[in-house]
């Protein structure tokens, strides 16, 4: 066993590193992050420029076929590129959904003309895409979509659709140019049967984006309202009524994208805090209760990192990874919340203050953010269901809505 690259991987890593050194600035402190702050237009501009450079150099989407601007490389090469890129001060995060989920769905369903038109601009960062799935009544239950799409004639007399409804939790909708959207086209059939997917310009008349302020204060998500939004039938992705199948394609890609929560404080900072905290009976780091918590979280942190290595090993060997990575968010999210809360306790009364104590803001952000991380992209409960059903082969929950027409559901 070892963590080393294969000769091919090593060569690629060397090549990537050389290119990055030539084109970007290396981070001084590996905690420093250039996280997308959605309210900084400058940052988006920089991100688009960087994305274009990557695309030109063939690093934008390594696993994509050459004809789409990829290099038909194996997933491990993609990972290696990202590992290396993470060491440089470059603006990331704007194109993951578009290139990771939307465009792959386009590739599966869109016409050659549309692919001709949309793939390249997306790859080069000229156009940003978002994914319009979740709705107020369709969270964990994605198929609970209520946004309607009805056949309609367009002003130009062509066949088209008119969309009415609301989406929610749409990341980046406020800076996106296009989106893929799932709609209900037939309420008279069971919920999974009546869905159809489209893509559309976010500039289409009737589309309105409103940011959602989170408990953490941030606003990475949006509500998107659709009022008589008319689009041509040519923007349909897949057959009418087969939107669920198309959505699964997208969500599968999402699952592949799920990784570790990057950045953030962890056991190192907690130990630092425990060393610097002076309890009545001495430094907190000597307190066995503190030590046992540090040990538990270290074991989890290491366990997740090493689990990720097992997945990478499979990729490196050209195998499909096992289900082990399904544990990552189940462990990481509560750990984030609990460690944040515990760190605040260590700080004493000042633990509630935004400044004063080193790392205070950071650990407070974990305590708040962890509450959100336990929900976003699959709640703790849904993820346990998934593990039980897909990994352990246990029965799905009883579905009372399976064969009932959507409009008959209470």
């Amino acid at each position, binding site marked *: 066993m070892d963590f080393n690259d294969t000769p091919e991987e090593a060569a690629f890593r060397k090549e990537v590193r050389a290119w990055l050194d030539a084109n970007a600035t290396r981070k001084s402190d590996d905690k420093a992050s250039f996280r997308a702050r959605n309210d900084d237009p400058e940052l988006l501009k920089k991100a688009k420029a960087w994305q274009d450079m990557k695309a030109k150099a063939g690093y934008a989407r390594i696993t994509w076929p050459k004809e789409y601007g990829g290099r038909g490389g194996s997933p491990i090469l993609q990972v290696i590129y990202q590992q290396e890129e993470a060491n440089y001060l470059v603006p990331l995060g704007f194109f993951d959904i578009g290139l990771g989920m939307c465009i792959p769905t386009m590739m599966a369903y869109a016409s050659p003309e549309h692919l001709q038109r949309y793939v390249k601009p997306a790859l080069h960062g000229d156009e940003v895409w978002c994914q319009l799935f979740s709705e107020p009544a369709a969270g964990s239950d994605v198929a609970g979509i209520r946004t309607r799409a009805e056949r309609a004639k367009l002003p130009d007399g062509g066949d088209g659709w008119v969309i009415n409804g609301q989406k929610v939790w749409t990341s980046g909708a406020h800076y996106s140019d296009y989106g893929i959207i799932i709609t209900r086209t037939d309420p008279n059939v069971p919920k999974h049967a009546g869905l159809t997917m489209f893509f559309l310009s976010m500039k289409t008349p009737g589309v309105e984006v409103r940011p959602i302020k989170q408990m953490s204060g941030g606003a990475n998500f949006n509500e998107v309202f659709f009022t008589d939004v008319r689009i041509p039938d040519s923007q349909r992705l897949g057959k009418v009524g087969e939107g669920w199948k198309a959505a699964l394609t997208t969500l599968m890609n999402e699952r592949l994208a799920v990784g570790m929560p990057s950045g953030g404080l962890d056991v190192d900072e907690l130990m630092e805090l425990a060393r610097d905290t002076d309890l009545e009976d001495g430094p907190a780091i000597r307190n066995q209760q503190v030590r046992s918590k540090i040990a538990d979280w270290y074991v989890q942190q290491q366990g997740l990192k090493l689990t990720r290595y097992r997945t990478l090993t499979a990729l490196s060997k050209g195998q499909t990874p096992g289900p082990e990575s399904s544990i990552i968010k189940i462990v990481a999210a509560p750990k984030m919340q609990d460690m944040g809360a515990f760190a605040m306790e260590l700080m004493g009364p000042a633990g509630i203050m935004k400044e004063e*104590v080193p790392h205070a803001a950071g650990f407070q952000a974990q305590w708040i953010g962890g*509450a959100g991380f336990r929900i976003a992209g699959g709640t703790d409960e849904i993820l346990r269901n998934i593990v039980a059903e897909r990994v352990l082969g246990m029965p799905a929950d009883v579905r009372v809505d399976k064969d009932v027409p959507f409009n008959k559901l209470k």
Partner: protein
Amino acid sequence: MNFDFSDDQKLLKEQLRKFLTDKCPTKVVRRVLDGNETHADEVWKGLVDLGVPATGIPEEYGGLGLSPLELCVIAEEVGRAAAPVPFDTSVVLATEALKLAGSDAQKKKWLSELAAGKAIGTLAIAEGPQPPKPRGIRTTFGGGRLNGKKVPVADGEAATFAVVLANTGGQGDRAVSLVLVDLTQAAVSKKRVETIDPARKHAELTFKDANAEFLGAEGEGWRTLERLYDAAAVYFAFAQVGGAEAAMWMARDYALQRQAFGRAIGSYQAIKHKLADCYVKLELARSNAYYGAMMLTDGGADLPLAAAAARIAATDAYDFASKENIQTHGGIGFTWEADTQFHYRRARVMALALGGPMAWKDKLVSRLEQKNAA
């Protein structure tokens, strides 16, 4: 066996709940959270009119001279509403400090002003980073002059006086004393500090040769503080029980109404058992809090142990209920518009205010050792 509140006390509780449901709905908490007010003054005035600050103050000092039990049921309702008022600071900490250590003159002046709602008091112990310890206190008091900086001080801006822990030059635990200082004098400056719970404003207090006087004997500060915290732990426990119960029912109501996969999410065991666990922790906390109340009332010898148990159980119940309330709500529960955040923030502030669970667990076992040795 009479281990319950009296009908009169339950009536008082009902009255408080009606008042707060009516005058202090969550939109009031949100107003303070989003705004600049130090606290919801109209709610505070209403509580004063109801005699809340006067409840535990002896009649000779203009109070109602009611028992701790009355204050406990009030605390539970204030906690349930997560009311943005200086209750735990002024009605609990400052008032109890005066009752414990105040001279007759001090009681005459301050307790009657508190009872009349003319004064708001607070307690100022922490000095920034590090859990407070006798040897760590840098604020000094001597020759009637108080100098130093205290932060964070809950309701520091609203308060008209403070009980301050200051170094008075003794050895070990006797190095510190409690000092009473009028905050309206020019020698005191106040600065708001940002915390995780903007609905509960905190401040930094700076003293430059401020006029002050001993509260209790010199060098007794740390001992008095320990006794003060035991009493406060019980009242806080009731407030935490109230908050935990509110969060639990908020989650339960949402779970009944929110549909997923064709049925209420409240019909899934993951949610049902989560809320059942909330209830279990809540009842453990309530029972321990009741015993704390009983020990407070007849000055029971078991108070130190009962207070620690109540504190630990109530902190656990509130932390758990407030965090799983968000989880039960899902995405909507994590938005700024959601009312779930009030209890999540308040739970953490209350958990740290008198020292966290770790410290109280250590205290509890020490007291258990003493008891068994006795």
